[in-house]
């Protein structure tokens, strides 16, 4: 019994030791980010008031239509808002504000990108949301260890990709159920 207790405690101790060791670098990374976050941002009041009630503000486009402007704040290792929804055909403007270190914004599928630097530059880009579905936007400026995982979602409605594949899976299920039943009936007929 004593042996098992010692073994168990040793395993737990090794586990904590490894975790503490490999997470030890965090302090340095956060320190750097915290220092950068203190730098005054010349665009500090950009949209802040108008964004409090809605994730975007509408504006009139050059063609007289309505565009949607999102201010996205980037901070290790997430965007706020992290999911933005627009409709197909919307003109979308993104203002990217880096809150700690330099961050980027690359939109999958649309292949547009911008970057922002805290206290220096607010990133900006514009595109027409002419492709429907879910698209990741991801950081394009190496910003730290979790940089490859810094992801947000743009969902362009109607999300026909999702509904089409869901329908496909449901259809496969139904066909499989019917096929199974039919095959067995055929077997019965053959057997008769």
């Amino acid at each position: 019994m004593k042996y098992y207790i010692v073994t168990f405690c040793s395993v737990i101790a090794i586990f904590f030791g490894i975790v503490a060791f490999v997470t030890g670098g965090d302090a340095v990374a956060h320190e750097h980010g915290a220092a950068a976050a203190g730098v005054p941002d010349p665009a500090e009041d950009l949209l802040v008031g108008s964004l409090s009630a809605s994730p975007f503000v509408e504006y009139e486009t050059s063609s007289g239509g309505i565009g949607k402007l999102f201010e996205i704040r980037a901070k290790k290792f997430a965007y706020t808002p992290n999911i933005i929804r627009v409709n197909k055909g919307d003109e979308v403007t993104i203002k990217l504000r880096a809150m700690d270190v330099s961050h980027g914004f690359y939109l999958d599928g649309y292949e547009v990108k911008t970057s922002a630097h805290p206290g220096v530059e607010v990133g900006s880009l514009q595109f027409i949301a002419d492709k429907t579905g879910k698209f990741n936007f991801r950081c394009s400026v190496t910003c730290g260890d979790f940089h490859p995982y810094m992801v947000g979602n743009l969902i362009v409605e109607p999300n026909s990709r999702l509904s089409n594949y869901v329908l496909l899976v449901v259809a496969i299920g139904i066909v499989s159920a019917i096929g199974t039943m039919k095959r067995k009936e055929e077997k019965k007929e053959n057997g008769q």
Partner: protein
Amino acid sequence: MANNKDKLFGIIDLDARFELTQFKWIRALCKSRWFYMGLLFFNLFMFTIILTSFFAGGFSAGNYNFGIMVVWILWWVLLMLLLVPVFSRAWCTMCPFPLFSDYFQRGKLYQVVQGKLGGLNLKLPKSLQNMWIMNILFLFTTFFSSFMTVRPFASFIVIGSIIVLAFIVGLIFQKRTFCLYMCPVSGFQGLYAQFAISEVRCKDPEICKNHKPKTCFVGDENGYGCPWLLTPFDFKKNTYCGMCLECFKSCPYDNMAFNLRPPGVDLLVKTKREYRRLDEAWKAFIMLGIAIMFFVTFQGPWGALKDMAKATTWSGYFTFIGFHSAVSLVIFPAIFLIFSLMSKALSGNKEVPLERVFTDFAYTLIPTGLGVWIAFSIGIILPNGSYILHILSDPFAWGWDLFGTAHIAWTPVLTLYTGHLQGIAVAVFFLFAAAYGSRISRQVYSNEKEAKLGWLPILVYLVLLNVAFLLLFLG
């Protein structure tokens, strides 16, 4: 076993095989020890660079580290997209980790040594001769995924530990005990290899029946007895065949074959020696649980989850690994148990044990799981693949430009199609899950009516599961 006239989707004969080793040069490769050693030494060389790069290859971010990119992006994606679905456990053929213990046991690197092997040569206790150790070890390894996929030294610890463990186990236990029962990578390969479109099998069972002694098992001057402790003359499933190709060398009748076959035929294999098992079923649940947790953590937009996974706070980290474990070990199996209960109830069969219903139908999660992991891998490689070009030219971050690609900018490719490819992967593999599931139902229940009714709840479960994954990937 499937009957001879059974055709998948009405067109694919489940008994169809195409023997690749009928081509002399392929058989020569399988019989060549140089070919095998060449693969091993190539990967030994690669792992030497990988381990070195973990120390000297840049510490700022994993995406510019050779080892991180080769192991966690290139290798993982190759494994899930190509090696396992097509070549079964071909990675085990070329994995260099057991090379040191093999050398210790045999005393020779190239020549075949007959007789007792070195080391203690102990047998693993019967109760541990299953996938449970691998299940736990693999799940445990994923607790560190948020460190080892971004921090080179964390990867060094994990991979280094596996190499050392493989060696130590080789000193104590017989042959490839580590690969067979302990390697974290082995379990899921074995599980999904059942779906692979290739296999190593004996050609003519009659030749094997009359051949004594069974040199594929005990070895001869040309080859070792199966290092994976299998009986190559009669095994029917890919799960535990490490494709080391020793049986090609030790068979005096050239009676071993490397075949192409319809995907997933192993799912219907149910013999006295190779039956469906709870440990393998749990592996299927664990793999699905890990897929969900990995996706929401690493490909999802939720920063709070990333903070938990990277241990920004201890409480967050332990909440993460606790939930991660619960999803894989408890929640997934519990939901499946409910549908298994419904299956048994609806079938009207009171004799069949619930454990059998649960275990047998869990094998329908193998195609689904593989499809989900392929979808997950597509989401990794398309946006991040271009990093590989950079690190190949400058593996140690020393400013080299070996292939002229060191300065290629990060360039996601085909990301417009990511969702489509993921949707197709999920749907296609669900098609196979449904096709095999209805056949498994016939094996579970005693008559057609029971099989038909008992299959419906499981089919509903599979539809819901696949829709849930579509929501994750595309919603």
